[in-house]
């Protein structure tokens, strides 16, 4: 298992998340908005709605619809990204919806839609996690009824060692067994609303990774909660 001597490229401890920043109300036009960052990875999210779903044939008379759009700004990475949706961003948009929806009481808004726009300003890996964290805060800030916010983190396996909150250099880690990326989103109760994995891992170590995510998402939750509280007291 994890060797105690393993050194992360940027010197962080295995369970150390990069410095986080969380802030709400960053887009005055929106009904709710938030910024969330892990180090150099910065995501902003804005919520518009609930509003009537258009076109009408997309209306769901039984429940409201959550519609997320994940988008990276063209200059958020080294090689410019062509603007517009890609296969990757289409998938992450849907993953974001799935990660957020279990915590929302969106049933209360039949025929309506809640739009969540997530944009990555600057990317140094773990962008979907930062995006989900920002989006969940923005939904709370917009006053969308919810059970609670959700928190997202990427667990990495570098060679044989589990680490928290992968950055780009770690994502490209090549030594030994290479890098495995496991983004996970959880409710404060520890229920999994989203998990993905890319790489190579055993079942036993994956279970360990999930326990590590449980611990880290608690830390992230406190940061999100603090920012939301501050927005109403000041």
């Amino acid at each position, binding site marked *: 298992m994890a060797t105690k001597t393993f050194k992360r490229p940027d010197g962080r401890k295995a369970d150390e998340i990069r410095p986080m920043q969380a802030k709400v109300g960053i887009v005055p036009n929106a009904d709710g908005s938030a910024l969330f960052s892990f180090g150099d990875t910065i995501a902003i999210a804005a919520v518009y709605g609930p509003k009537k779903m258009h076109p009408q044939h997309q209306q769901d008379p039984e429940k409201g619809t959550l519609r997320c759009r994940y988008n990276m700004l063209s200059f958020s990475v080294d*090689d410019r990204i062509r603007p517009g949706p890609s*296969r*990757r961003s*289409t*998938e992450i948009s*849907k*993953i974001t*919806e*799935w990660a957020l*929806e*279990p*915590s929302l009481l969106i049933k209360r808004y039949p025929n309506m839609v809640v739009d969540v726009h997530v944009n990555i300003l600057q990317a140094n890996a773990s962008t979907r996690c930062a995006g989900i964290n920002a989006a969940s805060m923005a939904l709370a800030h917009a006053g969308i009824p919810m059970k609670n916010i959700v928190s997202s983190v990427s667990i990495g396996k570098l060679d044989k060692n589990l680490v928290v909150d992968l950055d780009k250099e770690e994502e490209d880690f090549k030594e030994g067994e290479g890098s495995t990326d*496991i983004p996970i989103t959880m*409710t404060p109760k*520890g*229920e*999994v*609303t*989203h*998990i*993905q*994995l*890319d*790489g*190579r*891992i*055993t*079942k036993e170590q*994956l*279970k360990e990774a*999930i*326990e590590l995510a*449980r611990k880290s998402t608690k830390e992230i939750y406190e940061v999100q909660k603090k920012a939301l509280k501050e927005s109403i007291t000041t």
Partner: protein
Amino acid sequence: METTRITGERIKEYLEKGKRFDGRKPEEFREISVETGVSKKAEGSARVKIGKTEVIVGVKLNVTEPYPDSPNKGNLMVTSELLPLSSGRFEYGPPRFPAIELGRLIDRAIRESKFIQLEKLCIKEGEKVWGVFIDIYSINDDGNLIDAAGLGAIIALKTAKLPEYDEKNEKVIYGKLTNKKVPVSKEIPIVVTTHKIGDGIIVDPTIEEEDVSEARITVGGSVEGSLFSIQKGKSKEITIEDFNKILDVSEKTRKKVFSSIEKSLK
């Protein structure tokens, strides 16, 4: 969702007693049948049926420039089309999310497992490499296209051979296959999707079961015990306990599925 609520409720009632409409047990897969060489034009191809669900997967190869971040490796691309012919639910037009996701799920299982030895598909570093295209088509959708597509992809790859390449004229001579197989590893990625419906956990859903499923976990792994790719789908949270149970179910299923198609991989 086109399955009626009353059918959905009945599916859940049945599952509480450990039963399914088609008489299967929750962790029972439908019969899998495999046929290879279904297209003469493809460099490798396979038809996979799981019950009434059917997919065709073809592998095409070309010579192309490598991606800048992998100058000494072949290119891999997996796409899928959900043909309107395979279900009244699919329409023509640009690929929508389910088709995009299907391609990406299979892409990741194959890529992360390093099943294709892409470094052996380099012709001239930084200039010329083989490109491998895996294209998945649905022929009949009665649920669990994902697992069928995963099997189709690995079986088609296993049968794929490189066409002749005329270096002088820089042309691939299609139709003239060499004896060189597409280089693949021993460890084979098998994709198994597990669903949670009410308190029940099932594998290999029919289309109705897929409709009422609340959480979907797709796992790509090998019988040797490595997991390469995971994706949770659908809007319902699951407890860590349930997730661990699902990992166990999918491991058992992976072994069963592998042994039922093993002879097609020879």
